[in-house]
């Protein structure tokens, strides 16, 4: 028998979700989305239930419901029933682990942070952009390095990296095939309710390959969607459903899905500094709306609780992430995104990722199953240990103390004297040391033959004039 699980009460209820669901369907039917791509419009025009006026496309509710029903999420085994941390994506600034200074990211950082992420068992996209290589090679190198140095990176539903041109997408596709990784293409809607033409063009050209495709959108409350978070969530549902329906009608050779990474995203915006404010109270509310919506529609729950507006791995970062992650976990989330990111996603920090891992472990330990049994009550122990005696050397203590007490690695429990003796180090110093150690000791490498194949593909990309032209 166990003590009852801790849970968060309140939030969107099923009746409210159904109301939002109906309103989203109506918006898709009556207002529609803009699809600025002739080839895709031609395909859509063949379907009953699709109304096209110039580039405006409306879908009947039947088509939307069918698309939702047919959407598929092939959650990898390692992510099933596990606590998942997804770490970083596309950051162009990072904290140097040696100097502590903020600077542009390069290929060495990419390799090191990929290794660090792998050592910490994190999933997700490649952490930083290698700005020291030509722009057309940056993304291809991010996938290559991720495949070569990590077990979980860039190869499942938690990957959400762009492939900005078809030439680039083809290289990534070839590399994924060689490395035995999954390839998927994501289409982003731009709120309010239209698509990027280039994104549609790449999707269109990939249709023959039969690759899974996902839809994502990120409406911003008060900017590209209504100021109320609930209104923003409705717009997010509307855009996700409409986008998914479009994919289901054009990408018939594979399956389509709502990206769990940004499912039902609704971003918060600070009207004082004109910035996105991940880690804010409002963004936490978005998470609380997102979780029941994901559950209702069968989308794997992936929350962005590891974001912070703070510029350094400091108290603000810890408070925003700790509170957000705990509340999301109490609401049922077990997968957490954006580890290692600072300043609402502008900066990547290896130290921050190490701290994030500790924060998630902390939350995990709060919510671990607690047994209720005669053995746990230990009546015999209470009876046997005499007045003034100690339980410390008891067998029951020896046998159980590791399970009863979580021993954090970074949040050191020493007293002042011990702390001074250990060098009076800050949490960030400990995190820095651990990050460097993990990078140094990281050993995973993809099979040598596969690496040679990846090298060949990358060499082709380096000499590909068409690829270079596609980025102009």
């Amino acid at each position: 028998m166990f003590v009852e699980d801790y849970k968060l009460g309140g939030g969107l209820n099923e009746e409210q979700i159904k109301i939002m669901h109906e309103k989203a369907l109506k918006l898709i039917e009556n207002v529609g989305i803009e699809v600025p791509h002739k080839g895709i419009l031609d395909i859509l025009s063949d379907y009953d239930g699709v109304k096209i006026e110039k580039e405006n496309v409306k879908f009947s509710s039947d088509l939307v419901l069918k698309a939702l029903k047919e959407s598929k999420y092939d959650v990898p085994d390692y992510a099933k029933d596990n606590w998942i941390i997804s770490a970083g994506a596309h950051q162009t600034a990072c904290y140097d682990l040696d100097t502590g200074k903020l600077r542009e990211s390069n290929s060495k950082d990419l390799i090191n942070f990929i290794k660090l992420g792998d050592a910490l068992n994190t999933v997700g996209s490649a952490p930083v952009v290698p700005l020291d290589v030509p722009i057309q090679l940056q993304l291809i190198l991010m996938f290559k390095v991720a495949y070569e140095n990590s077990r979980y990176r860039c190869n499942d539903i938690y990957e959400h990296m762009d492939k900005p041109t078809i030439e680039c997408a083809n290289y990534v596709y070839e590399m994924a095939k060689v490395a035995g990784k999954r390839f998927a293409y994501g289409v982003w809607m731009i709120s309010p309710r239209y698509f990027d033409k280039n994104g549609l063009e790449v999707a269109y050209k990939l249709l023959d390959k039969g690759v899974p495709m996902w839809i994502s959108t990120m409406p911003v409350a008060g900017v590209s969607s209504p100021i109320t978070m609930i209104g923003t969530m409705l717009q997010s549902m509307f855009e996700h459903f409409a986008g998914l329906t479009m994919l289901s009608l054009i990408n018939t050779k594979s399956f389509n899905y709502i990206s769990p990474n940004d499912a039902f995203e609704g971003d918060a915006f600070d009207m004082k500094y004109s910035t996105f404010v991940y880690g804010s109270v409002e963004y936490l509310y978005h998470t609380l709306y997102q979780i029941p919506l994901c559950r209702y529609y069968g989308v794997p729950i992936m929350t962005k609780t590891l974001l912070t507006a703070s510029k350094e791995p400091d108290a603000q970062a810890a408070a925003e992430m700790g509170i957000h992650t705990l509340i999301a976990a109490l609401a049922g989330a077990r997968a957490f995104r954006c580890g290692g990111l600072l300043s609402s996603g502008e900066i990547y920090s290896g130290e921050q990722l190490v701290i994030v891992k500790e924060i998630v472990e902390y939350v995990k330990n709060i919510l671990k199953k607690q047994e209720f049994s005669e053995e746990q009550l230990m009546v015999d122990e209470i009876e046997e240990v005499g007045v003034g005696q100690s339980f410390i050397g008891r067998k029951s203590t020896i046998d159980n103390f590791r399970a009863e007490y979580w021993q954090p690695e970074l949040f050191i429990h020493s007293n002042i004297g011990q702390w001074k003796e250990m060098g009076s180090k800050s949490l960030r110093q400990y995190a820095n040391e651990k990050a460097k150690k993990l990078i140094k000791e990281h050993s995973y490498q993809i099979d040598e033959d596969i690496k040679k194949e990846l090298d060949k593909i990358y060499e082709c990309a380096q000499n590909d004039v068409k690829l270079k032209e596609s980025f102009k």
Partner: protein
Amino acid sequence: MFEEISRAVIEGNDEECIKLTQKYLDEGEKPVSIIKDGLVAGMNVVGKRFKAYEMYLPEVMMSANVMKKSMAILKPLISESEMPSMVKIIMATIRGDLHDIGKNLVSMMLEGAGFEIIDLGVDVPVDKIIEEIEKSKADVVGISALLTTTMMAMEPAIKKIKDKNSNVKVMVGGAPITQEFADKIGADGFAPDALRAIDLAKRLVST
């Protein structure tokens, strides 16, 4: 030679330690050698590992208990002249303070390290400590305080102890105590935790 006994102490394996102790005695080994080269050597490793945060308190206590059980077999077999002279340490929580978890931990650890402990308990008046020093001829006094209000009683207590027994060393500890405070009040030493109290006690008696 007594590596197996040391290992049994380190692993907290009392059955094995007792069995080996008996085996070596049957083979004619000297009890003093078994203590010195087996049990104490094992506890020294435990101490080092605990200090390096590689072993945890319950494990250290388990090892100390294992040592104690073998000591109970060996001690009666040692003549008074052979018995290594044990350093005596009086332990007490200062007058006005009823907290004893820290003091007890230090006592247990010191005992495990081979010191003879005279525990006077909590809320101990300084006169009682002085009386015990004279009676037992103790080498060291360990005074503990948890409260910032009671820690202030340490300074006059140390002064009085030193006035009466200038040779006795006084070490202090407890949550609010720092090295700076210990220096200020005239203590001979401060340890931030139970294990470091062993090092401190060893240092104090060697000077």
